[in-house]
């Protein structure tokens, strides 16, 4: 049955009801204080009048009468003031959103939507990690390929070197030259045989 006015408290930093209560207590205290002062002044004055028939008790009765009357009106008037202050001044209308809560209307995500967003983030992170791992593997292979290519090219260079040597020594096609050399060797062998037979 009590409206705690939490949203107003969020803005002001204090509850409106407490503010009003503080004001009420202060005003009431001042009223009582002033009445005490009034009574005090009257009693002091009466003290100075010799043979005065008015007793302090009578003055006290008068004070109580006046105070009761004032307190009654005070309470009635203060209640009206409180109503106005709580409705018009220390109040945040229902259609008003405080600046710190703007995100609530800009991004009204339900539990499911929020979970979906978190899941998506997790998935993206996993994909990024996978891509990073893939990059590592690819670059490792590139390095390996570099070394392998270098070795293979060295071997090819050896073959090229051999062929160059043969070419430098007049054998552009080693296979043909070798065949020719074999042929020539055979011919020479045949000629040698011939010569040996004739010399016998």
């Amino acid at each position: 049955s009590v409206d705690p006015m939490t949203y107003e408290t969020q803005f002001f930093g204090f509850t409106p009801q407490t503010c009003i209560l503080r004001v009420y207590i202060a005003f009431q205290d001042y009223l009582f204080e002033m009445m005490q002062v009034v009574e005090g002044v009257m009693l002091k004055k009466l003290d100075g009048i010799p043979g005065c028939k008015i007793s302090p008790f009578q003055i006290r009765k008068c004070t109580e009468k006046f105070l009761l009357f004032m307190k009654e009106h005070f309470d009635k008037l203060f209640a009206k003031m409180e109503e106005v202050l709580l409705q018009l001044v220390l109040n945040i209308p229902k259609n008003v959103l405080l600046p710190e809560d703007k995100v609530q209307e800009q991004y009204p995500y339900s539990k499911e939507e929020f979970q979906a967003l978190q899941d998506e983030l997790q998935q993206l992170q996993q994909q990024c990690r996978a891509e990073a791992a893939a990059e590592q593997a690819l670059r490792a292979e590139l390095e390996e390929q570099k070394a392998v290519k270098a070795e293979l090219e060295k071997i090819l260079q050896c073959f090229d070197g051999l062929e160059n040597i043969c070419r430098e020594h007049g054998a552009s096609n080693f296979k043909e030259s070798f065949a020719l050399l074999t042929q020539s060797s055979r011919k020479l062998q045949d000629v040698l045989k011939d010569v040996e037979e004739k010399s016998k």
Partner: protein
Amino acid sequence: GRAQVFTTVVDTFLEKLVAAGSYQRFVNCYRCFYKLQPQLTRSIYDQFISQLQASIKEEIQEVKNEGNLEGLFSSLDKIVEEAKDREEPAWRPSGIPEEDVRSTMVPYFLKHRSYLRRVLREKEEENRKVAESVLMGRDRIAELQQLIQARQQAWQ
């Protein structure tokens, strides 16, 4: 503005209180003293009213200063003015912190999502190029191996 309404309401309260606690009423209550000292009674009454008004106004000013009410009222007036075209009720805390804090996190999450998507896109593109180089490298190695085999066979 709220500040003006506040001041007006307090002033009205004081006015009506003073009107209720009129001199006539004061005299009615302190009749015995009034008969003895009518002028003093008037003086006491005037002092009482004046002091009461001053104390109440001072208290109000103190409350305004302590709570920075003037500033708060002005801010609130601005916020209310900005929302004047809106009819439907605004959001209010649900009382479940877990739910309410969600919306605070969403903007960051969305920013983070954009960032991750961009990074992933860039990484994928980069990896695609590196993968192409790797494939080309493999082809080249296969080519070299074939050449070497052919030369070796020829020498054999």
